[in-house]
């Protein structure tokens, strides 16, 4: 039998520059092919060229056959017939893939009607069925919602429902979970597998995440610089990679189950946070602003960082991680709770004391492009904290080349501008800037999440080395538990603005006690096909999305999604509903903590 999708010697150029070179891929019916690579490797371009969705300045050569029909060079009308009907696409950002002014249900119904000759009512019923199939609660009601009323995860589900509407033979998923949190990612991958089972479609799954690929794909193709460097079954590629690049890539992925050496004991407390709260008003009206509600962004965060130690602050988006950091760095009195930095309590500092504290605490931001002034040469950027602390010209001139060398950059590049560096190098500049005043505590806000895995590994190595050389303490904010495992000594998990569990990394990862921590850990995909598939069967899938932070919750705020809560007796449930579980240092904020191994 001929393959469903047959791509032979595909070349794609963008205005003369090669994006894809000599790509050969085949995909059989019902098969899932994972296309993996780092940014700029041409994986998305390959997927887009199947549906003829390349931008105008792109030229494609070669052949793409879907079930024997040549797609490359086919007319717009022929392609339109194929799109949705034979092949459907799931995009990375589902918000831009839906029309904002039409209801979700209508949009899916429209897709149904485009491919099948049925009435308006029937199409609408079918849309509700599809929404139900992808696990959207109360589908009939939600079908009447507009795209902006859906959360990211819900939108991605709806997107998959829409892709299923035409009962396609081929689903192209371009980084379908990249913008989502790990627990939501686990839900969506599950839905994607359901969709594939229901429609019997073949799936081309494009992702940079080897864990996602390992758990879903039957066969894997690895791309680099527009070429496919290795192709084979998932087991072959992950366990017996032939190409050095694949081996390198696999080695660079931080693994949540990686063994780690124990760290030496640590020194005195550097940062102590107790019961930190921060709220933002929700305002309405243009001329006269009325307060119509409150966002409880941070609502009870406890942190302890000791000298020479890395504390990872872990949570999903919207859990208040970044707000916590910014509250600390303002060095102003917190809205609620206490913050002690180097034994000094925030809120009672004189300007001179605050300035001295600023030297001891520095920050590295997530997006290295946004956090470096595009109009400043790198030398000046690095020198800025020094100058602020009143260093003289000679000291600055001596220190800047030193710092550049320390973070592995060429000191001769000090007069270059940020845009002349790559992503990883820019993050090194950000680190050099933070180090310039010899701080004792470095706050890292998702420092590697914008970087490709191989670059990420380099930056993590640098951070580890610097910590040992300079005896730094890190407050490391991340949503990526594998990275946390890799670099942190202790971990603190926040859910909806509140600390739910904290402790040494080995302890928490091996025996998580809070059900949320368990779910988080279990949702992290492993780049290992067999173990990942086995884990999928026992995976703790959280229902729904995190609830809105605009209201305050009585009792335990996790109980609406808690897998443990539903197993409790009525009396026990009452306790969860009324008492806020207390949090002690190195404990879990749960009334019924049960350690459970999930890794």
């Amino acid at each position, binding site marked *: 039998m001929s393959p469903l999708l047959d791509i032979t010697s595909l070349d794609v150029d963008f205005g003369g520059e090669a994006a894809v070179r000599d790509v050969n891929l085949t995909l059989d019916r019902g098969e899932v092919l994972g296309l993996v690579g780092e940014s700029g490797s041409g994986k998305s371009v390959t997927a887009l060229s199947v549906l003829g969705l390349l931008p105008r300045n792109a030229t494609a050569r070669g052949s793409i056959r879907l079930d024997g029909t040549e797609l490359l060079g086919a007319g717009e009308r022929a392609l339109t017939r194929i799109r949705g009907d034979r092949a459907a696409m799931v995009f990375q950002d589902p918000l831009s893939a839906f029309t904002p002014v039409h209801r979700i249900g209508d949009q899916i119904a429209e897709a149904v009607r485009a491919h099948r000759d049925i009435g308006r009512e029937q199409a609408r019923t079918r849309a509700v069925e599809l929404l139900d199939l992808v696990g959207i609660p109360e589908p009939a009601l939600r079908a009447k919602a507009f795209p902006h009323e859906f959360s990211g995860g819900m939108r991605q589900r709806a997107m998959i429902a829409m892709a299923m509407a035409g009962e396609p033979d081929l689903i192209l998923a371009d980084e379908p979970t990249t913008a989502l949190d790990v627990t939501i990612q686990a839900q969506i991958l599950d839905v994607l597998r359901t969709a594939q089972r229901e429609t019997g479609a073949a799936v081309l799954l494009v992702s940079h995440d080897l864990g996602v690929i390992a758990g879903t794909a039957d066969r894997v193709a690895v791309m680099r610089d527009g070429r496919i460097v290795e192709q084979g079954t998932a087991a072959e590629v992950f366990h017996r990679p032939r190409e050095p690049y694949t081996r390198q890539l696999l080695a660079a992925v931080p693994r949540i189950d990686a063994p780690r050496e124990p760290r030496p004991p640590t020194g005195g407390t550097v940062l102590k946070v107790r019961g930190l709260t921060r709220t933002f008003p929700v305002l309405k009206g243009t001329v006269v602003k009325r307060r119509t509600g409150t966002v409880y962004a941070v609502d009870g965060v406890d942190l302890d960082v000791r000298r020479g130690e890395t504390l990872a602050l872990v949570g999903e988006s919207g859990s208040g991680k970044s707000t916590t950091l*910014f509250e600390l*760095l303002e060095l102003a009195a917190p809205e609620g709770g206490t913050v002690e930095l180097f034994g000094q309590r925030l809120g009672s500092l004189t300007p001179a004391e*605050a*300035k001295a504290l*600023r*030297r001891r605490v*520095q*920050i590295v*931001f*997530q*997006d290295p492009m*946004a*956090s*470096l*002034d*595009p*109009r*400043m*040469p790198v*030398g*000046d950027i690095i*020198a*800025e*904290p020094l100058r*602020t*602390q009143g260093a003289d*010209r000679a000291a*600055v*001139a001596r220190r*800047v*080349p*030193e710092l*550049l*060398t320390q973070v*592995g*950059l*060429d*000191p*001769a590049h*000090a*007069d*270059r*501008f940020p*845009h*002349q560096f790559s992503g*990883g*190098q820019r993050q*090194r500049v950000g680190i050099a*800037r933070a180090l310039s005043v010899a701080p004792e505590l470095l706050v890292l806000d998702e420092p590697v999440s914008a970087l490709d895995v191989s670059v990420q590994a*380099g930056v993590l190595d640098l951070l580890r080395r610097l910590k040992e050389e300079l005896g730094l303490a890190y407050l490391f904010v991340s949503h990526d538990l594998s990275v946390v495992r890799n670099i942190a000594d202790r971990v603190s998990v926040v859910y909806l603005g509140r600390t739910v569990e904290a402790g040494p990394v080995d302890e928490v990862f091996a025996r998580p006690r809070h059900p949320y921590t368990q779910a988080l850990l279990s949702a992290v995909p492993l780049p290992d096909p067999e173990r990942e598939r086995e884990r999928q069967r026992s995976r703790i899938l959280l229902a729904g999305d995190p609830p809105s932070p605009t209201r305050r919750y009585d009792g335990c705020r996790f109980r609406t999604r808690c897998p443990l809560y539903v197993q409790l007796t009525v009396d026990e449930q009452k306790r969860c509903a009324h008492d806020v579980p207390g949090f002690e240092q190195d404990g879990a904020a749960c009334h019924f903590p049960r350690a459970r191994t999930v890794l």
Partner: protein
Amino acid sequence: MTTATRPAPAAAPTGRSALVLRRFLRNGSALTGAVVLVLLFLLAFLGPYLTPWSYSHIDYGALRSAPGPDHWWGTNRIGQDVFAQTVRGLQKSLIIGLLVAVLATGLASLVGACAGYFGGWTDRLLMFCVDLLLVFPSFLVIAIVSPRLRSGGWFAFVALLTVFAWMITARVVRSMTLSLKEREFVRAARYMGVGPFRIIWRHVLPNVASFLVIDATIQVGGAVMSETALSYFGFGVQPPDVSLGTLIASGTGAAITYPWMFFFAAGLLVVFVLAVNLVGDGLRDALDPTAEGAAR
């Protein structure tokens, strides 16, 4: 990426101002513009010493005479030497044009950046002033005030022109600052303990520099023109004193019949504005590291 092990060179890294200067000097057309500007200044301030005629002297023996060895650029209707008048006018216009542009853009960037950066009451107060000045009939105010400022000389006039020339720029700078303020590098500077005015100076203004430079170059031409308009109505530069604007205004009628009365003044104004634009473009490219064609 590996750690460089070779010893760090002792040379200090080049700072931003040095880099900008270097990039500016490498830009051929910008350099041309700067040289032309310098030549114009030389002409304006050394010109009066080159000719025996003064700008107000009337040579009754040569009315409307064409350029010649006696009067290099000819004479006007009443026998004044056009060369002497033009260089005198150039003096006035160069100073008024450049000063008004620099002062107005400076004021606009200061007010706009402060309003945007500090927000709250500072913003409301400053924007109130801006709106107030915008609704004031500027021409009327200048007309009323300028006779009293005559003793203050040309600088008072410059100040007056400036006061009514900066508001729209300030509003634009404010809105640009509002979006810059949320950028991470500004936040980073704040967490490093950099003071607010230093942040405005080092981070906000360089990032709106492209707009400011273009705005200033347009202001130069605008200032010369509004000075002309005011002079025409009897405010500002008054006879027997002249500016390029008044010369052009009085020479317009004679542009076809006695071209020298018009074209020398008009030509110098065009050259002046063109040079300023070249310098402005060069400055913008020098300040913008991503600009095409302006390699390091």
